[in-house]
């Protein structure tokens, strides 16, 4: 019974855009049929919300001192298919904010959690909510795999390191 109540609460929270608030489990078979049990989104626990790292599966992302060119290239491909429709690489806002400088303003964990756990972050994170008030379009969860999420972050890092 308790579980049902919990599910109902989560449903209420995330209904506005999408019910799917957990990171994608990318299997190799198309099309996508992932577990939609909303209860697996466990970050709505009693622990205080971490506005530096955000909510989601990424709690500690190790970054190398030098940029990984292979990841950057892979991240660029993902960007072009799934992100570029709304985000420019400059600081100019299109549908969503431009990416220039984002890795300086936000932690790797925050960015990767926002990419992979979009709905919960929009519902909870003060900064994400402020951005929603500006953009007025909830960022879609584009269901990036763990690898893609990391690649896109490396691509963002590279975007911020170049002139």
């Amino acid at each position, binding site marked *: 019974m308790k579980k049902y109540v919990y599910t109902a609460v989560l449903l209420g929270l995330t209904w506005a855009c999408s019910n799917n608030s957990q990171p994608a489990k990318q299997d190799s078979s198309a099309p996508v049929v992932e577990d939609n049990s909303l209860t697996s989104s466990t970050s709505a626990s009693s622990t205080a919300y971490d506005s530096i790292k955000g909510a989601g599966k990424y709690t500690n992302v190790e970054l190398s001192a030098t940029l990984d060119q292979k990841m950057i290239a892979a991240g660029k491909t993902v960007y072009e298919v799934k992100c570029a429709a709304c985000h420019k690489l400059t600081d100019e806002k299109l549908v969503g904010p431009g990416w220039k400088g984002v890795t300086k303003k936000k932690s790797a964990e925050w960015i990767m959690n926002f990419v992979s756990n979009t709905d919960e972050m929009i519902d909870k994170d003060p900064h994400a909510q402020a951005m929603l008030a500006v953009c007025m*379009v909830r960022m879609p*969860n584009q269901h990036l795999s763990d690898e893609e999420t990391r690649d896109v972050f490396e691509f963002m890092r590279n975007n911020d390191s170049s002139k």
Partner: protein
Amino acid sequence: MRLCLIAVLLAAFASCKPRNEAGAITAGAAEKVYVAPGKYDEFYNFVSGGFNGQVSVYGIPSGRLLKIIPVFSVMPENGYGYSEETKPMLETSHGSLPWDDQHHLELSQKDGTPDGRWLFANANNTPRVARINLATFKTEEIIELPNSAGNHSSPFCTENTEYVVAGTRFSVPIGDNQDVPIADYKKSFNGTVSFIKIDSSNGRMSLAFQLLTPAINFDLSHAGKGKSHDWFFFSCYNVEQAHTLLEVNASQRDKDFIMAVNWKKAEEFIKNNKGTLKNSRYAHNVYDETTHSATSTIESKVLTLDPSQLKDFVYFIPCPKSPHGVDIDPTGEYIVGSGKLAALIPVFSFDKLMAAIEKKDFDGDYQGIPVVKYESALYGEVQKPGLGPLHTEFDGKGNAYTSFFVSSEVVKWSIKDLKVLDRKPTFYSVGHLCIPGGDTKHPFGKYLIAYNKITKDRYLPTGPELAQSAQLYDISGDKMELLLDFPTVGEPHYAQALPADLIKNNSVKYFKIEENKHPYVTKGEKEAKVVREGNKVHVYMTSIRSHFTPDNIEGVRVGDEVYFHVTNLEQDWDIPHGFAVKGAANAEILIMPGETSTLKWIPDAEGVFPIYCTDFCSALHQEMQGYVRVSKAGSNTPLKYGTNLPDSAVAKK
């Protein structure tokens, strides 16, 4: 009990105008069908659409309509049959057909139990069988039946979905010379029964073989189960072989037939090359989920078996008065024939039938096919069950439930002692009925849904044409309890139901964009472009909340064939985008996340034509729009396209 029967009969016959018996509902009924907002129903109910040619999906016990799946009829609201990708699904040997009449459904089975993989649907008018994928709720395959007319006794399947069958309601001339006088019916016409092989790995259908039969009408069918696994049973009427005024002329004899076919034996004949490969022509249409596109091919061969020549695998069992339903109980032992005009229900025993065949206990033959003696196959008769028995389903607890069209009621009876246990009125004139898993080896029971042909005073009047209706009964107790009436779309015939758990966790939420193999896919706005090839203009377009790329296009000319190939870049559930262009002579398209869909448009005038998203997608949905400039034929307006380009910029290809 008897008084009750008389009362019901009186109610049905006292006047032509049915009376609304709302008093049958008890106080607790509302609670039993109430599914709170945000909660799921316990069962999916797949309901044939009859003359709308589609399949509708309801939740049980709420009776809420969840979806209409387009199958045999075009559906402008999502572009089925209008998009370039789905047009091939409606191809036949007669060309592209926009409509059919969809009567019966069967869920795929494993070991006699629904496995939630596929749903099969028949088309009556231009004989076809469709397969619907229950992960996507999309029609994935349609195969046409050659040498057939009025594919009514279809698409029932064997216990492990080895075969799905089809049969002729109308016998027709078959072969090289089909231009024959109708009066030569007995000489020149034949029926056929087709067995469609199902590939268990992917559901793909192929026409395995066809039985050439006497010119009688096949009405319904069901596969054996358990001990009768190897057999398939078909109800037959018009044994008189009438070709005019069948209402009278096909009701002359006391008994018609149930045809029993040993399909295992048919397989042996084929293995031993006893079949005859005949030329034929029929369409086979397959939708591919990775290209999001269908293809149509014309097949040319069919393997025929003639049971009047190849002995001992087809038998007739006499069955009173134009049998409609032929239903096999969960054990596979009892075969229930429902004579539309009979005042009793005969129940045949599979064991007795086998013994009679073994002993050649025949009453002669009918055009070369042995006729088993009625009494030799008969287990017993349900006496005075009601008027106009049509169909029977089972609850797995030894009970059968039969629908009665003429006396408007559902009657529960015990298979073992053939005694009537309960009867409840329907409002009005019930046709088919459905119990979840009610035609399988392991019925799920709990509910019974009756599909009524006449509703008259049940709902607010809507002019001369009224909704059909479904009625939900709780059958968990000794007596049936009417819980709910709900209107249905189209005209439901047979339906299937199964626990939601067998389907809902497999439901596809979106298609992965990386795996989209559509030849005109646009994977990201960077790839968006417009390409002219002669008078064909291909627009590689993307949609994402909330804009198209490109959304400004110039250089299109009057008379061009413009193909808008729209790829939905969204990768989340429940975010389709729509696409429409002013003046399009076809429809709109709805594009699911990760999918590519194509709308063809031939602009007929110069001007600037708006395009827009038709499926409310975000707070800025109303801004999801654009323009296509159309210049006169032969003009030199350069091809320009893009989204959010500076007014001076020209993207030229």
